[in-house]
């Protein structure tokens, strides 16, 4: 037993054990389930809720496996996806909008495996399907906002140019632009020129004039209108991609459907309720000048009488519910920030969100705070929620905007680019908000109008065929190796088997989503992994031919082949590394598979086979080698 140290045997044994343990969870098939989690303000998930759900399911004769409370969520398992769908419908009808109800595949991996961190690889959309969302983009909202801001812009333009106007208002009909009323024909033609010069995207035309009312219509050009809504969808797609990236879902499908829909399919989501909240939530922050302080007599009077000053809104403080007046003027919105992170404020011990603004936002913020030290500023939390009601057996959705003030305090000293916002209810809420702000705001509000479980895109028969061919291919290679290189070939076969096991173990541990191209990648890796053994075997044969003794041939074979194997694998690794830099999921997953495969095959093809070869040949006097 010359050249193979004990510690290497131990290492090989350890790695083999690791491979088997961490690859094992993939043998357990997950079951369809429905996950329930509480929305903000709803009573938490507990045993009474579990009872309620169980009774409802029993009453409607929906067969279920188990209903369990797991941490903050409730989980009900079902035998198949049909029952799962009816189960989900029943639970949704029972619980209403206070809870998020989402589809899930619940893992059946035993607890002791979970305890050591072993888990199964999530299967991709092509192999198993996943959760499916259809989202409606509310383009009208973008047009409303755009026309509203043009009305503001025209007002300030006319003021700057000292043109007297009677009114500048948005036309009540959407898409009809802004109506400006002036007092003379002269003013009108001046205003018309100025507006047309300043805003290229507006089409200005004279309206009917009565007595001393001279009307001017400024309509957004149709091209521009189309650009706006197209831009809104593109930006929404990007925002969705960002948010889903945060979830860590690999290989999602995000595509535009028709003019104003977006399809999102996610495979292998650990917490689908969270995913649904994250992709569907439209929430942002607005920083506005405060008018007085929360609970001021002015604010209380306005609340009582309903006489709200024209340039202010009446909101309520989150938590205390005190009325507060906030200026309509917006200093900075969530759209103007580049980064957000959550934490705990050192001084007050309450949750906070740290915000970093972009250059334009930072300038506006520092201009405002410089000019208004000692005056109040309010942070308004704007959220759009969709209420679902059943009317005549049909689901009717009404979007509703809720605005509340989370913070209203005097500006102590000027600030600009970076600052923090406190006043959020819980650390969880702070981190959720930071995630939303970071992922970018939606350019247009979205509503999830359809959701469900989507089946595999390849189909059971094709998956079956694919698996069979993979098995056949591997079996043929194993046979060929054993046939051509005899004992050394058999050792290579063992190495190849453990290569597969360890590769699967590492992929599971990292959480790579398994797809059909991924499986093809695994097979390719295994097919190429045997190259190292071919190199070694050919070298050993060469050494034998040159008259070396069997033991010397083995040693020289491994030594000389090593430099070749290393060079070949490093260059191959560079190629695989490049694939992982590609943004597209499928290619990235494939690259990761190749990369892990190259590394594991270096170990199994060289160290593991050497251990076996040394164990077999080590103590015996040899005349020939079976290679």
């Amino acid at each position, binding site marked *: 037993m010359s050249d193979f140290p004990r510690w290497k045997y131990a290492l090989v044994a350890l790695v083999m054990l690791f491979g088997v343990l961490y690859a094992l969870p993939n043998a357990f098939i997950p079951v369809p389930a429905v996950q329930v989690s509480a929305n903000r303000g709803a009573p938490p998930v507990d045993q009474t809720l579990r009872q309620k759900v169980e009774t409802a399911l029993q009453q409607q004769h929906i067969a279920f496996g188990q209903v369990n409370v797991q941490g903050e969520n409730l989980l009900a398992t079902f035998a198949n996806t*049909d029952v799962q769908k009816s189960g989900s419908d029943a639970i949704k009808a029972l619980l209403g909008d206070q809870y998020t109800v989402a589809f899930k595949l619940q893992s059946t991996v035993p607890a002791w495996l979970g305890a050591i961190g072993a888990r199964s690889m999530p299967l991709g959309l092509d192999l198993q399907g996943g959760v499916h969302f259809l989202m409606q983009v509310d383009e009208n909202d973008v047009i409303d906002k755009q026309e509203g801001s043009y009305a503001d812009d025209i007002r300030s333009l006319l003021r700057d140019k000292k043109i007297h106007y009677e009114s500048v208002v948005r036309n009540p009909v959407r898409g009809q632009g802004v109506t400006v009323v002036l007092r003379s024909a002269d003013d009108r033609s001046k205003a018309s020129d100025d507006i047309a010069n300043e805003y290229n995207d507006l089409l200005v035309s004279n309206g009917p004039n009565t007595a001393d009312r001279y009307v001017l219509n400024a309509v957004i050009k149709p091209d521009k209108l189309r650009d706006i809504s197209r831009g809104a969808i593109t930006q929404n797609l990007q925002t969705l991609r960002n948010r889903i990236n945060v979830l860590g879902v690999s290989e999602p499908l995000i595509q535009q459907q028709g003019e104003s829909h977006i399809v999102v399919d996610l495979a292998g989501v650990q917490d689908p309720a969270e995913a649904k909240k994250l992709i569907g939530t439209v929430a942002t922050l607005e920083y506005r000048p405060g008018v007085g302080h929360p609970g001021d007599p002015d604010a209380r009077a306005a609340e009582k009488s309903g006489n709200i000053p024209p340039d202010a809104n009446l909101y309520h403080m989150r938590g205390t519910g005190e009325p507060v007046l906030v200026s309509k003027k917006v200093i900075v919105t969530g759209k103007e920030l580049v980064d957000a992170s959550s934490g705990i404020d050192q001084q007050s011990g309450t949750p906070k969100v740290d915000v970093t603004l972009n250059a334009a936002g930072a300038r506006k913020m520092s201009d405002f705070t410089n000019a208004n030290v000692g005056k109040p500023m309010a942070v308004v939390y704007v959220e759009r929620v969709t209420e679902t009601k059943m009317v005549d057996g049909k689901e009717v959705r009404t979007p509703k905007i809720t605005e509340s003030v989370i913070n209203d305090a005097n500006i102590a000293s000027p600030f600009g680019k970076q600052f923090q916002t406190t006043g959020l209810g819980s650390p969880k809420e702070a981190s959720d908000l930071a995630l939303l702000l970071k992922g970018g705001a939606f350019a247009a509000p979205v509503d999830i109008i359809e959701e*469900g479980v989507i089946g595999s895109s390849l189909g059971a028969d094709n998956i079956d*065929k694919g698996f069979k061919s*993979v098995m056949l291919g591997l079996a043929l290679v194993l046979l060929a190796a054993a046939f051509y290189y005899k004992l050394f070939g058999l050792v290579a076969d063992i190495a190849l088997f453990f290569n597969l096991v360890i590769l699967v173990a590492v992929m599971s541990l990292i959480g790579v989503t398994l797809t059909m191209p991924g499986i*093809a990648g695994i097979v390719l890796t295994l097919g190429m992994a045997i190259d190292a053994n071919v190199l070694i075997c050919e070298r050993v044969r060469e050494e034998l031919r040159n008259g070396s003794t069997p033991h010397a041939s083995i040693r020289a074979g491994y030594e000389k082949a090593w430099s070749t194997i290393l060079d070949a694998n490093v260059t191959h690794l560079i190629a695989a590394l490049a*694939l992982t830099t590609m943004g597209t999921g499928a290619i990235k997953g494939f690259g990761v598979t190749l990369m892990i495969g190259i590394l594991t095959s270096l170990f199994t093809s060289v160290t593991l086979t050497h251990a076996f070869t040394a164990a077999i040949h080590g103590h015996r006097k040899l005349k020939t080698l079976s290679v």
Partner: protein
Amino acid sequence: MEIFNHDSNINFLGMRKYSIAIAIFLMVASIGMIAFKGLNYGLDFTGGVSMLVNYDKPVEIGDVRGALAKGGFADAVVQSLGGTREVSIRFQAKDDPAAMQANGTVNLDRVSADVMKELQAARADAKLKSRDFVSAEVGAELKTDGTWAALFVILGIMAYLWIRFERRFAIAAVATEIHDVLVTLGIIALVQREFDMTVLASVLAVIGYSINDKVVVFDRIRELFRLARKAEPEEILNRSINNTLSRTIITSLFTGITMAAMWFIGGPAVHGFAITMLIGILVGTLSSIFVASPILLWLGVSKKDLMPVTRDNPELARRP
């Protein structure tokens, strides 16, 4: 057991004029194919039409797929949606030539009517729920990402070979590599095999496979140059190719076996991957034998370039 004579001594370098000529011809032809015939991009690159279809009674996805295949929509992606009575169908509009309008746009009503006709022929209870165009699954960023990835591979491999071997090896490897990828793509364009994400992954994997192959030969060249007392480059290169020939072919066969199995019985899910890989393995193996070494010879590889640095660095040699 040995299939190949280990004493083989084929004069591969002797045919270098022909082999390089053929390689250049293949490259030019491939560029022409890609430029003029183009790649037949798949659904994930182009987007297409998406339809939701309801059934009164539960339906098997396989049956839906079968009915579509009969009507010429064999490449359609069919998925169950929330149970067994609703299916989502996605396909490229070009599968239905009759619906293409003169101005290049697609008549959505016509397409969905054609598809529904096929579905209702198989199952009378099929009802159209909605139909729409869908965008491509992969964004435009894939192109820029792909370019960067290719650049990264070329520079990375060049840098590594430059350091571990020598400048000429780096150039020869990358030149052959570009040849392999172009010819593989050229063949795909020639037979108009559908080019989807799986095929793209496979083309990129060909890069990894073929560089592996070249490096093994290069490694032997370096070794023989260092060992040989009288090093006639042409003879050394020939011996290197012959010495590694058995390994080159056996490895290609082994990897080829797995891919061939996937091609023959793997079905449409892995078909594209397997055939691309098979083409790539063939091209890569041939270029390892016939193309890479002649380039090396022309670049003027010699023994002294490959000796360990310390010996021909006069600076170091002068030291005691």
